[in-house]
């Protein structure tokens, strides 16, 4: 599963071991980071004390990562404009989002009020506590265990057929299509 991991600079500064642990848990659970930026950012911004020169490049890479990712995991213990922006973009794109916060983090913040069917808020005490939260989130949003939306264009002839078949059978157009595909799968003895 493709995961985009987001966090703010103060988390890099204060919680790098937690961030590394989160990345290990993602990897151990068959997750792949779409944009593996944490260690580079830690070296450049924290160890070398350099400031970011090109926010446009970061913006583009993050937007691309959100688009590619199946799920988003954000460590949100520290306020950050960029993290807020990315969370909103991910929710708009209907990506499942896990918002992790240290239990001691300030709760007087806008992000704790973000409620959406795609968002899960979780607090953790320490590194060990993070593991089951991430494992469960990844499992619940594993594509293998979820239905998926599929959009496609149909011409008028197919549309007319589907409308007619839906009327005749009392099934929805989507049900008719799923049955057709299932019949084809059965015919070809396909094993997923």
């Amino acid at each position, binding site marked *: 599963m493709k995961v985009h991991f987001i966090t703010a600079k103060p988390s890099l500064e204060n919680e790098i071991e937690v961030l590394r642990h989160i990345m290990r848990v993602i990897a151990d659970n068959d997750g792949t980071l779409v944009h593996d930026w944490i260690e580079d950012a830690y070296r450049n911004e924290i160890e070398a004390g350099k*400031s*970011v020169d*090109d*926010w*446009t*490049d*970061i*913006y*583009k890479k993050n937007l691309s990562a959100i688009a590619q990712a199946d799920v988003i995991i954000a460590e*949100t213990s520290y*306020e*950050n*404009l*960029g*993290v*807020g*922006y*990315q*969370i*909103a*973009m991910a929710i*708009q794109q209907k990506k499942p989002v896990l918002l992790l916060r240290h239990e001691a983090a300030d*709760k*007087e*913040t*806008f*992000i*704790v*009020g*973000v*409620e959406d069917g795609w968002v899960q808020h979780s607090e953790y005490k320490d590194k060990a506590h993070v593991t089951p939260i991430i494992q469960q989130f990844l499992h619940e949003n594993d594509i293998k265990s979820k239905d998926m939306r599929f959009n496609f264009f149909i011409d008028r002839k197919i549309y007319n057929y589907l409308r007619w078949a839906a009327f005749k059978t009392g099934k929805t157009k989507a049900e008719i299509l799923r049955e057709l595909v299932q019949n084809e799968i059965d015919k070809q003895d396909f094993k997923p």
Partner: protein
Amino acid sequence: MIIHLIGSTNAISEDISYLHAINSIILNAGNTVALDWLKVAHERAVAHDTPPENWAFTVDANLEAIRRADTVIIEGTHHDYLQGYQTAIALEHKKPVLIISRNPNAKSPYSGIRHRMLTIKEYKTEKDVSRIVEQFIQDNTVTTKDLRFNMFIDRPIHNYLRSMSYETGKNKSEIIRDLINREIQKKD
């Protein structure tokens, strides 16, 4: 015009005079603020024993304000989740967004956001704020801008428009605009 003004609640005491200035410019130009939050947020910030904010309510109120607003103005000198989240939502709703800040813009994360509806400006004084905000409002006043209008059409209308478009070389929107203009002229 309805304008949603956004600023940091964490640093409201530092930004309050500028936020009031922006608010006054909006109101004095005959506009309305989508959400009148300044006074309450400032009172909360200066009081010491206020109960925790209901953030779910605040988020909902702000998202509803973005939906109602024609434009969004963000004071971004002190930026946090609130500004980042709402900037993304406003731009996704294709609302013109102005971010103004007293910090050099090149060093701010929002300088990386590339969107045709986003304007980012730096200011030093309240006079700068007036100039920038007034210009932004003027640029985005609905009476001076074209508007998008979506409508459903049935098949006979679609067929008619397609055939007229083919015959005249105009696109379907031009044909509808011509029809409306003719109707307006008829009624003088």
